[in-house]
C-alpha cells in the first residue's frame, strides 16, 4: 500500500449561511493551498462530494468548480456522496500511483430548503418514499427497538446527550419533551450549512508540506441493505466490517471522530466497533451541527487536526450516509509511520 497523508484542512459551519456554495468554498480552498504552499497547477487531482438533490439542480457541483479555478484544465472527479467517499476515491487514485497531491472538498447548504424532504427522497421509491417518513421518525423506529431490546438504556441516551453537548445534565435531558417518540430534541441533530477542504499527499511529498502528516493507515467502506425490512435496525454489520478492514483494532485508539447525528447512533457505533466511551471529547459533534455531504469529511479533518496538534497519535474517523447508518466509512489516521 502506498502511504497517503492528510496535510492540510479548512472548514466552516454555520446554521444559516448567506454565502452561496462558491463563496463558501473559495476561502476554504484558498486556505488549504496557502497552508501547503501549493497552487492549483501543483495539485494532481481534485475530488469533491455534494448533493444535487440538496441544490435542486443537476450537475450543481460543476458550478462550485469555480471555487477551485479549473483553468488551465484540471483532473477532477465528483461523488454524489459525503466528501469522505471523495477522499476514498482519491486514496484509490493514490494507490494507482498516478498522483502525489490532491485536493478533496465537500459541502452542503440545506438552509434554503427542507432537508427532511431531501432525505425522504433517498428512501425506496416504491415502498417507503411515497409515505414521506422524516429522518427523525426513521431514527425513532430504530431507537425504540434498541430501547425495547435493552441494547441501550434511557440513561445512556441522557449521558450521551450530556457528553455531546445537547443537554446540560440527565435532569435537563429527561425534562425535554419527546420530539419523535422515544427521541427527544437532545437526541436529534441540528442541521448546518458548511464545507470542508483537505489536501492529501503521498509519502514522497507529505513531509515537505506538513510538520506532522496524518497518515491514513487504514480505510474501508461498506454498505447494508436498502430494504428496511431486511435490515436489523439494532445492528450495523457494515461498520463492524469496515472497522475490521481498516485495522481499527491493530493498535490503541487515542480518540474517535464519529459521524453520529443521533445519540442512538453514537452508542450503536461504539458498540459495533468495540469502542469505549471516550475520555477525550470529539473536536466537534455532528449532533450539534450536521451538514449533509460534509459532516463525514469533517470527521477526517478533525482527526487530522488532533494529530497535527499532538493531542493524539492514532485516531478513528467515521463517516455515514443513507438512512440510519446504512453506509459506513472507517478511516484510521496515525501521527507516525508504523
Amino acid at each position, binding site marked *: 500500500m502506498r502511504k497517503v497523508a492528510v496535510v492540510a484542512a479548512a472548514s466552516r459551519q454555520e446554521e444559516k449561511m448567506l454565502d452561496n456554495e462558491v463563496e463558501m468554498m473559495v476561502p476554504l480552498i484558498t486556505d488549504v493551498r496557502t497552508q501547503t504552499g501549493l497552487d492549483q497547477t501543483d495539485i494532481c487531482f481534485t475530488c469533491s462530494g455534494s448533493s444535487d438533490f440538496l441544490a435542486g439542480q443537476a450537475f450543481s457541483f460543476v458550478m462550485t468548480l469555480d471555487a477551485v479555478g479549473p483553468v488551465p484544465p484540471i483532473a477532477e472527479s465528483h461523488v454524489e456522496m459525503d466528501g469522505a467517499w471523495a477522499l476514498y476515491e482519491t486514496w484509490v487514485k493514490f494507490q494507482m500511483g498516478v498522483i502525489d497531491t490532491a485536493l478533496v472538498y465537500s459541502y452542503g447548504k440545506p438552509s434554503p430548503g427542507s432537508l427532511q424532504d431531501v432525505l*425522504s427522497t433517498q428512501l425506496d421509491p*416504491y*415502498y417507503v418514499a411515497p409515505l*414521506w*417518513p422524516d429522518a427523525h421518525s426513521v431514527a*425513532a*423506529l430504530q431507537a425504540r427497538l434498541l430501547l425495547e431490546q435493552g441494547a441501550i438504556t434511557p440513561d445512556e441516551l441522557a449521558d450521551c446527550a450530556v457528553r455531546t453537548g445537547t443537554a446540560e445534565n440527565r435532569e435537563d435531558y429527561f425534562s425535554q419533551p419527546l420530539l*419523535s417518540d*422515544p427521541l427527544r430534541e437532545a437526541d436529534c441533530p441540528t442541521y448546518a450549512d458548511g464545507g470542508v477542504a483537505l489536501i492529501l499527499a503521498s509519502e514522497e511529498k507529505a513531509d515537505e508540506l506538513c510538520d506532522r502528516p496524518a497518515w491514513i493507515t487504514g480505510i474501508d467502506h461498506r454498505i447494508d441493505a436498502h430494504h428496511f*425490512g431486511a435490515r436489523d435496525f439494532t445492528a450495523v454489520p457494515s461498520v463492524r466490517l469496515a472497522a475490521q478492514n481498516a485495522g481499527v483494532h491493530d493498535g490503541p485508539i487515542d480518540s474517535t471522530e464519529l459521524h453520529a447525528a443521533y445519540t442512538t447512533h453514537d452508542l450503536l457505533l461504539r458498540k459495533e466497533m468495540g469502542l469505549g466511551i471516550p475520555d477525550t471529547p470529539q473536536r466537534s459533534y455532528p449532533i450539534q451541527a450536521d451538514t449533509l455531504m460534509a459532516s463525514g469529511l469533517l470527521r477526517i479533518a478533525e482527526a487530522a487536526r488532533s494529530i497535527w496538534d499532538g493531542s493524539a497519535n492514532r485516531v478513528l474517523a467515521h463517516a455515514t450516509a443513507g438512512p440510519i447508518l446504512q453506509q459506513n466509512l472507517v478511516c484510521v489516521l496515525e501521527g507516525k509511520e508504523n
Partner: protein
Amino acid sequence: MESTERLSAPLVLEYPFTRTTGPVIGAFLTGLREKIVLGIKRHDGTVLVPPTEYDPETSETLTEMVEVAQQGEVTTWTWVQEPRPQSPWDSPHALAMIKLEGADTPMLHAVLADGPEELEVGMKVRIKWREVTEGHIKDIEGFIPIGENND
C-alpha cells in the same frame, strides 16, 4: 419592451420517462390494487415483504411470490404529531414497522390510532384499504388496531 420589465421564460420541471415496476414490484402493486399483499420467498425459505427482485443481502434472484395475511404485529413505532404536507396522512398517526402473518420481514406504514398511548410493540393490527385502489403503496390507508371497537 420597457427597460424596467423583467425578462422571464417558463421553466417546466418534468420527468419525461415512463418507468415500469417490473415483475416483482409490479406484481406487489397489482396485488394491492386487488387488496391482497404479496411477498417473495428467499432461498432460506423466509418471506420478504414487500418483495424485491433480488435478495437485499445475498443478491440472489428471487421469483417465488406468496400471499401473506392482512394482519400482523407492530415491531417498532413512533408518533407523528404534525404530518408533513406531502405525507399521505393529514392527522396525527403512528409510523410503524409491521410484520404481517406469513412474512418474516416488517414493512413501514402508518397505524391509525388516536394517540401514542394506544401503541405498543407487539400489538396486533390489520390493513385498512382505501375505497378506491390503484396499485400504489398508498392503497393501504393505514393499519388499525385489532381490538374491541375495530371488529
